[in-house]
């Protein structure tokens, strides 16, 4: 199994844990990820509302490059994934978008025929692996770990190629496969507030708070995410939120790929657990999933 891999900006910066854990996981599962050559910003920025034509051209350039590779294109970041799907759709549906993109691509000698299938790691891991491939590789089942799977928006809205728009379940199923207990709570598809964190931080933090509190009330040990924006937003502002809501306990927010990596027995570098703001290792040790601290080799800092 071979894919084109589109990291986007986050996975090279705040979401490095995602990239590291995802790529190690793929390696362990014999899925080859070939980073797209000369990729550019996915285009999921407010530039969309400034100059639509140019903004979509930016996105479609990535699709054009991927088309040359002839493989499915995996985009782990929710922002990237959503905008790539949307741009592909608009490119096919709206002549104005199409024309301006064709014109822009031409300047670089590129063209996009519209054949690229944009995929998310959740989709790829759930759909493409042979049955039981994941289960058979589990070395340290996440027994006793209560996980609140958090999906946010972009994998299923406005386009939902692989899961239910309102009640996504792919992550639940994957983590269940490796032994985790999935808690039921009603906020898994609600907005994380990320889009507001710059402009109206208090609003954003209020939204984040409701999600974290719901997870906490559902007795989750950890929140699992599949998007670097969600992950950052849910984890990085917990101190600020606590200023307004002292009742909120710190709760680690990890990537689902990190948890899968742990279950597959991958080492600390591969799972990038050291990059957490709210440490997750103590919980994993407490549950007996990770070995005791003493035996654990020291991990490098960020």
């Amino acid at each position, binding site marked *: 199994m071979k894919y084109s891999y589109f990291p986007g900006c986050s996975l090279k910066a705040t979401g490095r844990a995602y990239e590291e854990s995802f790529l190690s996981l793929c390696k362990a599962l014999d899925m080859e990820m070939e980073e797209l050559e000369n990729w550019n910003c996915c285009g999921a920025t407010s530039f969309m509302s400034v100059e639509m034509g140019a903004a979509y051209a930016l996105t479609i350039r990535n699709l054009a490059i991927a088309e040359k590779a002839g493989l499915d294109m995996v985009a782990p970041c929710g922002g990237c994934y959503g905008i790539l799907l949307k741009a592909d759709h608009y490119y096919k549906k709206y002549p104005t978008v199409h024309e301006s993109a064709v014109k822009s691509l031409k300047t670089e000698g590129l063209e996009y025929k519209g054949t690229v299938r944009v995929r998310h790691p959740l989709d790829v891991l759930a759909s493409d692996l042979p049955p039981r491939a994941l289960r058979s590789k589990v070395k340290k089942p996440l027994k006793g770990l209560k996980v609140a799977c958090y999906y946010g928006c972009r994998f299923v809205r406005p386009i939902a190629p692989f899961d*239910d728009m*309102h*009640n996504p379940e792919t992550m639940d199923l994957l983590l269940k496969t490796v032994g985790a207990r999935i808690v*039921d709570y*009603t*906020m898994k598809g609600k907005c994380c507030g990320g889009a507001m964190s710059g402009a109206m931080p208090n609003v954003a933090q*209020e939204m984040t708070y*409701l999600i974290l*509190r719901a997870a906490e009330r559902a007795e989750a040990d950890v929140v699992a995410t599949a998007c670097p924006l969600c992950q950052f937003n849910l984890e990085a502002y917990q101190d600020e939120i606590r200023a307004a809501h002292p009742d909120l306990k710190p709760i680690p927010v990890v990537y689902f790929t990190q948890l899968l990596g742990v279950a597959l027995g991958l080492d600390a570098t591969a799972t990038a657990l050291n990059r957490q703001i709210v440490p997750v290792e103590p919980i994993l040790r407490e549950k007996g999933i990770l070995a005791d601290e003493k035996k654990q080799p020291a991990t490098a800092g960020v």
Partner: protein
Amino acid sequence: MDDKTIGNGSEEVRIGFFICHCGSNIAGTIDVEAVADYVRTLPNVVVSSDYKYTCSVAGQDMIVEDILKYKLNRVVVAACSPLLHEKTFRAATQRGGINPFFFHMVNIREHGSWVHQDRALATQKAMDMARGAIARVKFHKALEKRREPVRQSVLVVGGGIAGIHAALTMANAGKKVYLVEREPTIGGHMAMFDKTFPTLDCAACILTPKMSEVGSHPNIVLWSYSEVTEIKGYVGNYDVTVKRKPRYIKEDLCVGCLDCIDHCVFKTGNTDDEFNQNLSKRKPVYIPFAQAVPRLVAIDPAACTHLNGGKCEQSCATACDRQAIDFEQKETFEHIGVGAVIVATGFKPFDAHRKPLYGYGRFPDVYTALEVERLVCSSGPTGGDVVLKDGSKPKSVGIIHCVGSRDHQTNRWCSRVCCMYSLKLAHLLKEHTDAEIYNFYIDIRTPGKGYEEFYERLQEEGNHFIRGRVGDITDVPIIPEEEGRMIVRVEDSLAGFVRRIPVDMVVLATGLEPREDASEIRRRFNISCSSEGFFLERHPKLAPVSTTTDGVFLAGCCQGPKDIPDTVAQAGAAAAESLVLLDVGYVEMEPMTAFVTEKYCSGCKTCLPLCPFSAISRDEEKGVAVINPVLCKGCGTCVAACPSGAITQNLFEDRQIFAEIEELLVHA
């Protein structure tokens, strides 16, 4: 070719062509005069004229007069679809004194003027089509319609209010009725309702007398817990097989004393009670509800210990002094013959799980409307007490309209009854609990006698109406008043902001859907479905209870969502249409059947496996195939397959079709 098969033998073919303007419907797009002029130049055409409305009396008279005046022996009319007016013009042809099958119709309206814009091209197409018809009609021959007697009995499928009403109407008119119901009792959804809108009369009070009448009517054979498995034959003469599922009770012995239920080893219910929407439990030996018809118990093989191979003292059987319980009962099959069929198989409520954001199945106090019907009903699981799962009474209730209706993610259609039943439930819930009632609606639709007045009454009663489609039901509070309650999040599109309304109980006004097995039933009865899956009527306005299969009629919600008054009216109409069929006493069979010309048949048996109606047999003595004209339905499949060209289909003969093809393709 056989001489006997050639129309009027050696007689000269004289064709009259008539093209219709249909007001401006045709003439607006097609140059009808030009077509008439063109056709006049074709061989054998004696007269070619255009007329404003050919289907009018004057138009038909013109055809009759021209047949006489010009000694026509063929008639071609270019007008609308033959499915609409072929009968009309065949009759006119006959009035002119020639066999009606010397007529052929060209569809230049539905297939021409209404679908094309370019006048020149549409006119060209009309000319080509006329030319094809002129070519084919030369080869037409005189045919006779066969008459077959109609059996004086009717099958009604489904024992809801539609089936009940249709069955009683037919039975009261003196016809033999077979009413087949899948469940152990008739009554359908209406039996589950508490009150009916807008009059608020009790559903059971108006339904159960009709149910008993069905049970005791001398002209009605009621088979409950039964299903139609096969139907063969044709209009007026259907052969039906009905499967009677074992209810493990000898129907002729059971008197409905219900002693067996009392003596069941289970002292309380052990399985979900479907009639109460699974809000209560029932025993494996049960009667669906007190007024069930027929009043016969049934044993649920899924719940009965003995039938599941377990050890049981079978106290129910010993309790029955009439020894009516029979654990050895097997399914049986009844074979009946009927003249007509009324399909009244009803609907399925929308599955609320399909709207996960409304929390059905997640939050215990989110109910469907049908569940609430049972909750407010005094014979329901709580004896009419509206209490939540924790036993408390709700202080505020949200009723969400259009769940699974008017929704592009689920069903696009309006289910027609939900607004009114929501208003009814709002009224009943207020009456039972005095709670604050919030109706969340998109539009309130109350087209019906007394319906709008009922809506006004509800407003006056102090119910809240909030216009907006509910986004979701959440259990995540942001203010203390919301703690521990469900919060309805909705954009109030009149006020222009998002509201969060905490409630204790949510009622989902689920829409109406086709039943899961609608497409299976449709195939069994050889009828069509419209795109959303409800059965398709022959014409939405003019043949609303007929189907494309003659002798099969529709009643009730299987054709589309409707309320009780409309259902009853439609059931009456279906009964009336069936009565017409039965009282006329015969049906005329279209003569487009196939026949074998023996001298060309090698007896190769190619045709034998192809006939779905077993109309083809083999005369072993002569070594040829023989088609039974009574069984042949005229599909022509064997005709196409016959490698000798020995089979001919009337009205669809090879030479007619070849002539049509070849002339259609000659550009005028």
